[in-house]
């Protein structure tokens, strides 16, 4: 059978007129395309049924009231203080966490990319182990560390830095500390992979031409690391916008974010219209960010698919 196939392949140009061959090729190509689309189908059905359909349903829900179509749920977001204040706080915290994760993530990614063997591995292990550890476990650990008589307060008091225990949790401080801990690996890992690819030769070339280390860093290293910073920042910011678990546990119900607004509207008040509108505004913001950044870095790259 295999021989026949090969024979057919090699003979065809001479025996058949070129037109037929072109038609056969086109038919073959169409068949190939259909096969590919069929292979994609099961995954598309899952995402369609369990993600896109629910989103559409929420969209319908958000503009439907007893008296028919109404934008009341969206108007309320802009009119009622609690709603837009929650959005503002969510943006503020997400922005703060993103900036902090650049500040803390850059040095460790840099160190890991320049270190050799054992030390590079040690740094990466310290980033990857928390990354793979359940967010719940880490939130639990922070609840223990940050409580009034927790390790952080005790250490600070023993060192004589503070006289009274600080309120580190059930407020915005706790939310930021815990959220940053979850987000930091999302910054470090893309940064590391970009920095690792920066050739040492370029930096040496700059220095051999008389540039001071800081100048080399600023003019050669930083521009080349910039795409990594951008990818990491987008990822961190977007995940922060919809983050629920850690802010809920460490914020102690006092730092209300958009995700909690959605959850409370659904679970406590069964206010589907309000929950849907709030959620969809959040979704629109996220999509706008991805759409805007797509021109500079393809989305697939940011999500690690490229």
């Amino acid at each position: 059978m295999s021989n026949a196939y090969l024979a057919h392949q090699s003979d065809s140009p001479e025996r058949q007129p070129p037109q037929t061959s072109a038609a056969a090729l086109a038919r073959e190509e169409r068949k190939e395309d259909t096969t590919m689309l069929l292979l994609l189908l099961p995954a598309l059905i899952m995402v369609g049924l369990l993600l896109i359909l629910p989103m559409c349903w929420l969209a319908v829900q958000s503009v439907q009231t007893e008296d028919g179509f109404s934008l009341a749920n969206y108007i309320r977001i802009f009119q009622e203080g609690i709603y837009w204040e929650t959005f503002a706080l969510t943006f503020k915290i997400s922005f703060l966490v993103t900036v902090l994760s650049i500040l803390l993530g850059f040095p460790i990614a840099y160190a890991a990319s320049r270190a050799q063997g054992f030390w590079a591995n040690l740094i990466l292990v310290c980033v990857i182990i928390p990354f793979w550890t359940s967010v719940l476990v880490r939130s639990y650990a922070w609840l223990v560390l940050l409580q009034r008589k927790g390790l952080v307060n005790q250490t600070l008091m023993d060192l004589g830095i503070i006289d009274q225990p600080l309120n580190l949790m059930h407020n915005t401080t706790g939310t930021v500390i815990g959220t940053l801990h979850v987000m930091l690996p999302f910054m470090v890992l893309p940064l590391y992979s970009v920095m690792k690819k920066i050739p040492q030769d370029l930096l040496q070339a700059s220095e051999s031409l008389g540039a001071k280390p800081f100048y080399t860093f600023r003019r050669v290293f930083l521009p080349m690391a910039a795409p990594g910073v951008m990818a990491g920042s987008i990822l961190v910011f977007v995940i922060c916008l919809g983050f629920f678990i850690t802010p809920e546990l460490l914020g102690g119900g006092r730092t209300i974010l958009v995700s909690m607004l959605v959850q409370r509207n659904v679970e406590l008040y069964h206010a589907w219209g309000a929950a849907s509108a709030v959620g969809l505004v959040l979704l629109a913001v996220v999509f706008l960010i991805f759409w805007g950044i797509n021109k500079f870095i393809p989305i697939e790259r940011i999500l690690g698919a490229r």
Partner: protein
Amino acid sequence: MNTLANLRQLRVSHVVFTLVVAAILLYLIIPVLIVVPMSFSEARFLQFPPKEWSLRWYEAFFHSAEWMSAARVSLITAFATMVVSLPIGMAAAYAINASSLRIVRTLQIILLLPMMVPIILIAAGVFFVYARVGLISTMTGLIMAHIMLALPYVIIALLAGLRNFDMSQEMVARSLGMNRFRAFMAVTLPQIKPSLVSATLFAFITSLDETVVALFISGGDNQTLTKRMFTALRDEIDPTIAAISSLLIFASLLLVVIAGRSKGKAR
């Protein structure tokens, strides 16, 4: 003189930089490390370091019918998610890699949507749909939602392998008479094994770790471990959580090692 001063300055900045890096790494790793000794504490209230040691929280976990049932639900769900999402994700990743159709790029982004849409919104949406079709608090519903959530991770991991694989090898096998599926199984699959391993791990972990959707749609006898842990953490801090956390940390360490080894072999 001048060079000496420069050198000293360089060394000082080096030391400062090392200290800063060490401090950040401590911030990252301490919360993970602290949980383990706490799980062996005798005390009912959180304290560190523990004054007396015991295994009572592990006993509390393994002897509690509720915790055990939650652990069983989580493990079954994670296993089922893994088994179903792998072939579905494999088919999709294969098509994304092999096809040059323009629409495929759009379809790929659609398949990545579960990573982009805020999880709280997915949870609310799935809850809303499930409430209408009676899938709330069922294993089927939970597993289906987790498959959808795991798919992008599976596809990304497999794509990484496929992109580094030379597809003409599969073509050769096909030209020698194997059908496409057999050629794939015999030639391609064995060579992308490392990415298959990481896709498997990702599928399993995504499901095992997933909290927000489970919080909304799992319930009754089919509550996941994460839902029970979350509720326990919100209401009052039960040290049993420390024991469960330690077990989970141990499990994730194991997975990091497995992932590391499969990558090492690939090199």
